[in-house]
């Protein structure tokens, strides 16, 4: 790729201090006019050595760590760590815990998708929609607070099930919030998908080649925007997803607009799934399996890879245990790992500098899961 860059190109660092990148990361670009000739992603500004820290923590102590791997959507991380260790240890979680876990995952997906949809237009300079969607996301965070006691880092899913039962009257309040979201959605649709300027900015911009999907392992809305129905919830079902009725949203075009459409469809589907869960969840029964004393718990030697659908795509945990009371190794495979490094560097040549931020947001880049 280096032969595309000549001496007369302007070298520019976008980030880490830059409002146009998603979080604390940076993209080094070479510009000719307004066109990017080449781009390199640089990460590591958020590195905390989580995988090292988990080698020193007991199993239960790892939960406060994993939920900090992706800030907008921590529950997927908690679920994956729990699922991986449970699979090796051979623990079966009770029925109600499966429903509650799905509820937490889906609420997190809804919150993160709302944030991403707002950020998508916010990155193009329309400040109105992000203001609305962040508020709607805050309603979900309120329900999270009620369910788990925390706004951002929930630590709700633990080995064997979940930490708490559903509070009294939760379903009614959740329904109220979902209605509030649904009331606002037509306005958001109007401002995004019927907006002439947004269509001009988004259609045909940030295109990816459908052939890259299999080659590079592109997942989530980025793949679904190419018409490829890649969704772990459907393809490799986990928890209660096989019992639920939902559609895998796809769109055609492979561009930013198609990804925004997929996100918009995901919001509707998430609302639908949350309603189904709240209606069909078993009323009683244990929400956590009987677990041994967490201070002395040891898990036999084994290794596995578990995956779940985050709002950004397939998230995977490679979990290795060695028979002690600590994890041997956890390796997180976030969707951004491929999307924001290899894929972005491949997409950037030929892009206008104005579209850089919009392209990054359209793949919902989350830097902490790249460097952990």
């Amino acid at each position: 790729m280096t032969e595309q860059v000549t001496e007369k190109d302007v070298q520019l660092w976008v980030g880490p201090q830059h409002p146009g990148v998603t979080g604390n990361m940076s993209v080094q670009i070479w510009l000719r006019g307004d066109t990017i000739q080449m781009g390199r992603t640089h990460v590591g500004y958020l590195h905390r050595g989580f995988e090292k820290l988990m080698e020193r923590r007991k199993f239960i102590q790892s939960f406060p760590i994993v939920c900090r791997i992706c800030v907008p959507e921590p529950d997927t991380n908690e679920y994956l760590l729990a699922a991986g260790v449970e699979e090796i240890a051979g623990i079966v979680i009770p029925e109600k815990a499966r429903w509650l876990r799905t509820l937490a995952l889906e609420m997190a997906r809804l919150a993160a998708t709302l944030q991403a949809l707002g950020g998508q237009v916010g990155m193009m300079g329309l400040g109105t929609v992000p203001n609305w969607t962040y508020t709607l996301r805050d309603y979900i965070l309120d329900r999270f607070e009620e369910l788990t006691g925390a706004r951002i880092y929930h630590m709700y899913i633990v080995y064997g099930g979940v930490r708490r039962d559903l509070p009294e009257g939760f379903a009614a309040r959740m329904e109220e919030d979902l209605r509030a979201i649904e009331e606002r959605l037509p306005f958001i649709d109007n401002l995004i998908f019927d907006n002439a300027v947004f269509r001009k900015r988004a259609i045909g911009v940030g295109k990816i080649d459908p052939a890259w999907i299999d080659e590079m392992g592109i997942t989530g809305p980025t793949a679904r925007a190419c018409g490829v129905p890649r969704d772990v919830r459907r393809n490799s079902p986990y928890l209660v997803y096989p019992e639920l009725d939902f559609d895998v949203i796809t769109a055609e075009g492979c561009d930013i607009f198609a990804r925004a459409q997929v996100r918009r469809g995901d919001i509707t589907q998430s609302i639908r799934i949350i309603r189904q869960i709240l209606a069909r969840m078993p009323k009683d029964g244990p929400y956590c399996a009987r677990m041994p004393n967490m201070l002395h718990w040891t898990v036999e030697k084994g290794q596995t890879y578990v995956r779940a659908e985050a709002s950004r795509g397939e998230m995977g945990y490679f979990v290795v245990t060695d028979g002690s009371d600590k994890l041997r190794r956890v390796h997180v495979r976030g969707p951004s790992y491929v999307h924001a490094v290899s894929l972005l560097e491949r997409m950037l040549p030929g892009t206008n500098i104005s579209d850089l931020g919009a392209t990054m947001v359209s793949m919902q880049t989350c830097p902490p899961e790249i460097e952990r």
Partner: protein
Amino acid sequence: MSNKPDLLHGVPEIPAGSVPHANGCDQSCFLGERPDPLSYKEAIQTVKNWFRANSLWVIAYGTGCGSIELRPLGTARFDMERFGIAMRPTPRQSNVLIISGYLSIKSLKRVIRVYEQMPSPKWVVGLGSCTINGGMYWDSYATMKVLDLYLPVDVYIAGCMPRPEALIGGFKELMRMIKNGETKGYIDYIERLDWYRENQKQIIKDWDLPDYSW
């Protein structure tokens, strides 16, 4: 929330009357205003402080995971603009640097540059437990533990993460401190630049920053 703690690994005493300047370049001319004993100047200082307190421009740099709560703070639910707090995208035009959570050493290098480029008077808000004592990352090899060894912190907001209400509380405290003229962090940074530099160089192994990033 606390004021800047004054003892950390033995802060060197500054002899009264001397203005040490670091590394050959004299920053004392860019210190901003110092408190003056004359009363009419105090009155002017009060007016200036009132203006400064009511127009805080925060640099848009999310250094850590705490920045996730800055966005609800800036948008419709918590709306920090009603207090006159606005986000500015360039360090040249901002006064407040929020260290949102843990700071990896790679980031610390950039943060120092950003901080030095901001015009005086400037303030640093440490957000989250990780800036105070390392928090849950106390044994991590990649993050710094005590923020005020490297930057002069004016207000700490405890919690992980601090809620937006706590952030508003922290900003209110900062405003109160500015109005009363209690924030001397930016003067302290220049006066003890050598000490700060020493600390910074202690953990930034490949030091390639300039003497002072103008």
